């Protein structure tokens, strides 16, 4: 399958690969996909108390498009607020990487990963608040 140069670039030079401490109250972890389907994406966001995404890390098991999609969104979310990050859609990812139709679901996975990571962060914060009060 012919991939775009952007996919190949992200595949060969993935940005922000790594692992954050998932116990850190300021880290939200999103784990999406399934091994049986051939792709699993884990996105971690370090979010300040006022909702700014300070850092992002990913690890992905999947095809070149899945790796590129997750690498791309780590670049995009950094410096954004949680609300801004929530507006990133799979269409933006698919367009930016010029994904072939059969690989669109990789971009859906990336969008889901952002939402899952933010959700995890929000849950943690709510739990912390409940504990404090």
């Amino acid at each position, binding site marked *: *399958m012919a*991939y775009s140069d952007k996919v*190949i670039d992200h*595949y060969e030079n*993935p940005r922000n*690969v790594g*692992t954050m401490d998932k116990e850190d109250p300021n880290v939200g972890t999103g*784990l*999406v*996909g*399934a*091994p*049986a*389907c*051939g*792709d*699993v*994406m*884990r996105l971690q966001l370090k979010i300040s108390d006022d909702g700014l995404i300070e850092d992002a890390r990913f*690890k*992905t*098991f*999947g*095809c*070149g498009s*899945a*790796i590129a999609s997750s690498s791309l969104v780590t670049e995009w979310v950094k410096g954004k607020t949680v609300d801004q990050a929530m507006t990133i859609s799979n269409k933006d990812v698919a367009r930016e990487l010029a994904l072939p139709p*059969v690989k669109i*679901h990789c971009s*859906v*996975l990336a969008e*889901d990963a952002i939402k899952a990571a933010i959700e995890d962060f929000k849950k943690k914060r709510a739990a912390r608040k409940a504990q404090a009060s």
Partner: protein
Amino acid sequence: MKLPIYMDNHATTPMDPRVLDVMLPYLREDFGNAASRNHVFGWKAEAAVKKARQQVAELIGATDQEIVFTSGATESDNLAIKGVVEYYKSKGDHIITLKTEHKAILDTCKRLERVRQERLDELKLLRLGQLAGRDVSPEEVAELAAKHDLDNDETYKKWAEMPTGGARVTYLDVEKDGRVNLEKLEEAMTPKTVLVSIMFANNEIGVVQPVAEIGALCRKKGVLFHCDAVQGIGKVPFDVEAMKVDLASITSHKMYGPKGIGALYVRRKPRVRIAPIIDGGGHERGMRSGTLNVAAIVGFGHAAQLAREELADEAARILRLREKLRKGLTDALDMTIINGSMEHRLPGNLNISFAHAEGESLMMGIKDVAVSSGSACTSASLEPSYVLRALGVDEELAHSSIRFGLGRFTTEEEVDYVVQLVVDKVRKLRDMSPLYEMAKEGIDLKSIEWTAH
């Protein structure tokens, strides 16, 4: 060493230069039609075809009269299965095959099942019309069938047993090592069974089936045995007499000959009959009409001769390289699994899963090496290989599989290069893989509730 490196010899093999040399005159001056009986051009072509027929026959222990030239293995498989089903339809309509067969077999069988189903649907409509005393539309069938209970209707039951032109098919499971279970095969046989179609060597996992045992069983039971022998012929010994094979599909381009030419072996003693699927001038003793592709046939014949003469040496050399590849990969990398029997396997095949490193992205990382993904991810379908699934290979592992196919022109230097490259890339992908990290931490991946998508 030249890049890219070709390690996909199950898909096709490069043509041996010696084969091309013998073909060229038949594309130039000796271009005659082998069916032209009245001039020297025709005679030359006919003689060349006769020689090639002999060469192909010798490779499999057959006689030249038992070789029917076709356009390749897909056509041979179609001709064998459809030809037998059509010819022996009054005897029975049941076929047995394996879930791990090539699509040329499985899809042919599925078509025959559809033909039978369509015929039964027509009969049902007709019988219900009789019982209702009026014309019945297809939409009414379900409702009326419930009322009239056709399963216990003697007339309908009798009709349904009549030849339909289609077939009922049993798709047998294989054992974990990819081989057929002979007891299950025998159990699956019924008085209506006309054909068993089981491949010689599997195209994905290289597993070689116990063909002689299958042949003996079929002979004992009076069932014809067709063997799609494409991947194994010329690589490991194959003999239609010793193995009691009745029909065998062969193709030239998997044994360093040209593409677009193949053959079907059709046994003469005891005689096997098939109905043709292509009608026309009656070439190939009426079994496959169409002007013979003389140059390709000549190349096929020469490729068969080379394969026969060099088989033993070549198999030993390729096996040594394959083992070097296997050892190089499995010594350097943990969590690797070889798919299919190691004992009963083509010398040039290595189908291996690198757990937690996805196959398609691995192929992207080793783009200078032509291999095939164990999963079908590169095609339009994202489903993992049905062959690996039939072996009970875990879906994640099926997504992490690569098929290496070594061949006549594979060099030691290439193997060394590939080992190093694959090891580096698998490590890189695993460093990026959340699954590998989790597995290393001792997390059971099965215990996680994954979000399906």
